[in-house]
């Protein structure tokens, strides 16, 4: 077993580290810190943030990959993540086909030939469930959850008391409640997942709880990494257009008008297909299916980024136009400060609120877009777990009678909670950071 970070792992982690570094820097800058405290002063924002962090934790957990070197293991040579290890029991042992949440037998009847040689249709029992002791296991699972939640909350309180609480108290109570509920719920599901398929299984008997957890990373990656592409493009182009004006402005405006005048789906579809061709021509780039899917995800992110920077760029340009009329920029010019320094020192810092708002706003949109793109056939790799892929399968399952509702349900719940949290949080961010809301 050796550490084997995928490209997206590295990017996600560096984004995390970058974010944290920025956070530390912000702690020093009092104005920024105050704004953040203001954001968290709303209980809704606090709850959303805890939920988002919970999702992020899973994404991060799923972003530390190891390569299995042991040739005696059945999955030797494959690349697995920490989450896979934790969910080993649900990753490797799968059923034959559909089963409902907490079911003990398959959902559909199959043809069996019994000992007498008579063929009949019957519900086969599931291979990897142990239904006995439901309540004890539940109690145990919840107990562990409660203990864990209390411990962490206690530690946090200690840390706060230790002088880290500044200014007006934040609504920690809501945060603790959310945290406790999530921890208990998850630990219960986790413990139960050893004995049941808590969210049922899909067409080939794959565990949906595992699939839903794996999908978190895909959703989070698309939501976050896309900004890595969008941001530099939009920032550099938007600020230069707004600051230099003249032909630079004309050129950049031309660029983004051209890009945005092409219908978005077509551009993305074309981009994704192009990248697929490139990948097909170089099959040697990827050792495993996981890596291949990973690169495809990365490309998707890049394409989404390249096609979606225009909106932000336009906003940044407009704001830069406004800021560069401000007296403090005039003052800097009167000091003979050169253009690059003015942009870096005066303009970019004053754009942060727009950037932040657009990042949090785009996040949920991107998570939702993934599903639609998968439907059109230009989404993530089909071997990759993602909500889009789950929904697409579920679409067909809804036509069954009786319905196979659980895979749609799992995808719906996991996605809905994330997007809702993101939307509520972005709402708050927008409310606090947007200067128009000051009045």
């Amino acid at each position: 077993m050796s550490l084997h970070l995928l490209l997206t792992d590295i990017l996600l982690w560096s984004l995390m580290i970058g974010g944290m570094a920025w956070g530390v820097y912000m702690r020093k800058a009092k104005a920024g810190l105050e704004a953040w405290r203001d954001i968290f002063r709303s209980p809704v924002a606090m709850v959303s943030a805890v939920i988002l962090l919970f999702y992020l934790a899973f994404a991060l957990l799923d972003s530390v990959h190891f390569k299995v070197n042991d040739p005696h293991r059945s999955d030797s040579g494959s690349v697995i993540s920490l989450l896979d290890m934790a969910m080993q029991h649900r990753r490797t042992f799968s059923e034959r086909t559909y089963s409902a949440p907490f079911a003990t037998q398959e959902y559909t009847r199959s043809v069996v030939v019994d000992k007498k040689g008579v063929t009949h249709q019957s519900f086969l029992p599931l291979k990897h469930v142990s239904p006995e002791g439901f309540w004890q296991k539940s109690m145990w699972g919840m107990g562990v959850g409660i203990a864990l939640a209390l411990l962490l909350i206690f530690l946090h309180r200690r840390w706060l008391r230790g002088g880290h609480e500044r200014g007006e108290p934040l609504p920690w109570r809501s945060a603790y409640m959310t945290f406790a509920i999530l921890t208990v719920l998850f630990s219960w599901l986790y413990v139960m997942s050893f004995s049941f398929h808590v969210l049922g299984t899909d067409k080939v008997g794959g565990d949906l709880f595992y699939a839903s957890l794996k999908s978190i990373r895909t959703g989070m990656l698309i939501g976050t990494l896309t900004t890595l592409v969008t941001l530099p493009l939009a920032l550099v182009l938007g600020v230069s257009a707004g600051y230099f004006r003249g032909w630079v402005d004309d050129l950049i405006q031309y660029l983004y008008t051209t890009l945005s005048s092409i219908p978005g789906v077509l551009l993305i579809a074309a981009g994704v297909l192009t990248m697929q061709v490139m990948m097909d021509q170089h099959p040697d780039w990827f050792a495993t299916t996981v890596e291949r899917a990973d690169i495809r995800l990365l490309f998707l992110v890049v394409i989404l980024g390249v096609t979606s920077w225009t909106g932000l760029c336009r906003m940044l340009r407009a704001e830069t136009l406004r800021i560069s009329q401000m007296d403090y920029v005039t003052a800097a010019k009167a000091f003979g400060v050169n253009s690059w320094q003015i942009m870096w020192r005066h303009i970019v810092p004053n754009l942060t609120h727009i950037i932040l708002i657009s990042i949090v706003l785009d996040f949920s949109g991107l998570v939702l877009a993934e599903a639609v793109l998968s439907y059109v056939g230009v989404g993530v790799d089909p071997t990759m777990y993602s909500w889009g892929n789950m929904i697409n399968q579920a679409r067909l399952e809804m036509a069954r009678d009786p319905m196979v509702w659980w895979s749609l349900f799992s995808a719906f719940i996991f996605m809905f909670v994330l997007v809702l949290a993101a939307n509520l949080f972005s709402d708050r961010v927008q409310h606090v950071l947007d200067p128009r809301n000051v009045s």
Partner: protein
Amino acid sequence: MRIVRAVNHYIVWCLFLSFAYGGLWNMPYEKGESATNTLFSTFSVAPKHLDPVRSYSANEWAIIGQIYEPPLQYNYVDRPYRLEPLTLMRMPEVTYLDENGTLCDENSTRVAYSRYHLQLRPDIRYQDHPAFVKHSDGTLYYGKLQPSLLSSISSVWDLPKRASREVRAEDYAYAIKRMAVRAYHSPVLDTMRPYIVGLDSFSKQISQIAQIKHQAHRPLDLRAYTIEGVKVTGKRSLEITIHGKYPQFLYWLAMNFFAPIPWEADLFYQQEGLRAKNISLDTSPVGSGPYYLALSDPNRKMILKRNRHFHTEYYPGMEKTELNRLPFIDRVVYTLEKESIPMWNKFLQGYYDASGISSEAFDQAVEIGSSGSMGLSDTMKRKGIRMIGSVEPSIFYMAFNMEDPVVGGYSESAKKLRQAISIVQDQEEYISIFMNERGVAAQGPIPPGIFGYVLGEAGTNRVVYDWVNGKRVRKSLAYAKRLLAEAGYPDGIDPQTKKRLKLYYDTTATGPDDRALMDWRRKQFAKLGIDLVIRATDYNRFQDKVRRGKVQIFSWGWNADYPDPENFLFLLYGGNAVVDTGGAGINSSNYKNPVFDRLFEEVKSMENTPQRAKKIVRMVHIAQEDAPWVWGVYPKSLVLVHHWFTQVLPHAMANNTLKYKCIDPKERVAKQQMWNQPVYLPLLIIGGAILLLGWWLYKLYEKRQRRTIRERR
């Protein structure tokens, strides 16, 4: 507030008005349409080409099969499939000629040409069509459409005058001549070139002429040219000469490529103005079949109507009375249904008369009886739905590229590797999970219903199965592992890299629906400890890789063109290997076994005799041993039909079966009424809730208006 309420009222009334008169709310057709003698059917892909010279896909043939009439057809009732004359007086007579054109015996080695004599029936007439309207001098009445007239029409049926005429032998010759024109892109031209005498040179010559005419914007009238091997010997007689012996040629004569094309229609449709309106033979066929295309909107709907000039034909094996005269149905409405779910639901609601069963709907529809036979579920039976099933003359298989250094080759170890892999591909599970039992695990290249297919123990693939107690049992995993070890990969470990053997599987499976399938694939290989790397690409890239032999393992399938074993065995014939033929060949696994190839040459032009059967069995055995394919699945087709839809027989080869089928519209209307009564309650609840909310808001505003500032705090 008042406005909001008014809008609400308006919406509710609109709903009522738009529905109230139409009977059922969810009726997808016009009012009263389902009470007529009309068949409602679907198509899932918009047909691109309805021109018989070009069209080569099942969905297109399903439509033009009802419109065009080639000389022969398959008998609707008889099994195994049997050809019978359609527009001919009798089956074509074949004479054999030697190099000099003198008659000789069929079995003589001097046979250089075969000549088919076709004698047309006298009562075959084309449908009514504007192209047949003529001036007194014989020129087309609508031959030069004026722009004013053109701008007022959107289909040929907008032209007021129509006429019909008898089908003549020259029309059949005309069709073959059209086939020769390159610009018409006939898919069978290159297949037919080596057979039909003179077609090759004619094709080159006529294609050039066609190009010149096209550049000069002049119409191409093929009547002026003749092919050497296609001779019109009389008003209703025709001779087609082909090189050598080719008994399968009769099957070709049952295909639409050989259906008659009237020169009037060809010239009529070559007018620029019509082309610009998408009116051409590709969209508006002219045929002599039981139906004509009354509406051609390939993006939405196609409507067939009865051709009043259709010749006399009776249901096979029944009394020749007016009651049994074909066709039975007056009108057919095909609706585009891209998605399987709406289509299935509409079938259940009675709006489609027949439907396939998607895997999603399978549980709902089908039950497996105690004997292992499939039957309809009770809910379906209660609805009066019937199931019609048959094994199709097709095969889905997983092929190894025999040119590949790892899985290919004819050495013992390579063979064993392939055999081991073949054993662990649990096709029965595949059929159960992904095909809902709608298939049969294949034993060799020839599917049931085709000459050369063997049932039972004798037909069992001994490489993969054992015959135990009268049943096929897949060989054990242990046995497969042993084979693998013998092949040089103990436990799947590649001795060279000391790692697990890594094989590459190419697929076009890029959609999310395919994830499960790919997981299953990997699982099969993992049983042996082999790592399967899936390389999913789009269809282009996939095809291209196959053509260049740049694949290792891949899945493909084949549908029979005609019910002859040659049409399957040639998939393994070395002369057809893709890499050798620059991609034109059909043998995509590049299998080349000299014994097999020699036998194929022999079998190819034989009649269906016991000798032929014996040789075919030998060929199959050779292929089973070499295992160039994992013999996958012979798919079964299941069709569900409502009880008011009768005389439906499955027929995998025939396309013109619509004329035999029958509908009882009264029963259909009754059932549709029964099954589709709208549920009113939720509508009332929702409407009530909206009104209540509006009222509450109004009260709220009023209250606010009455409040003083002191109360506002």
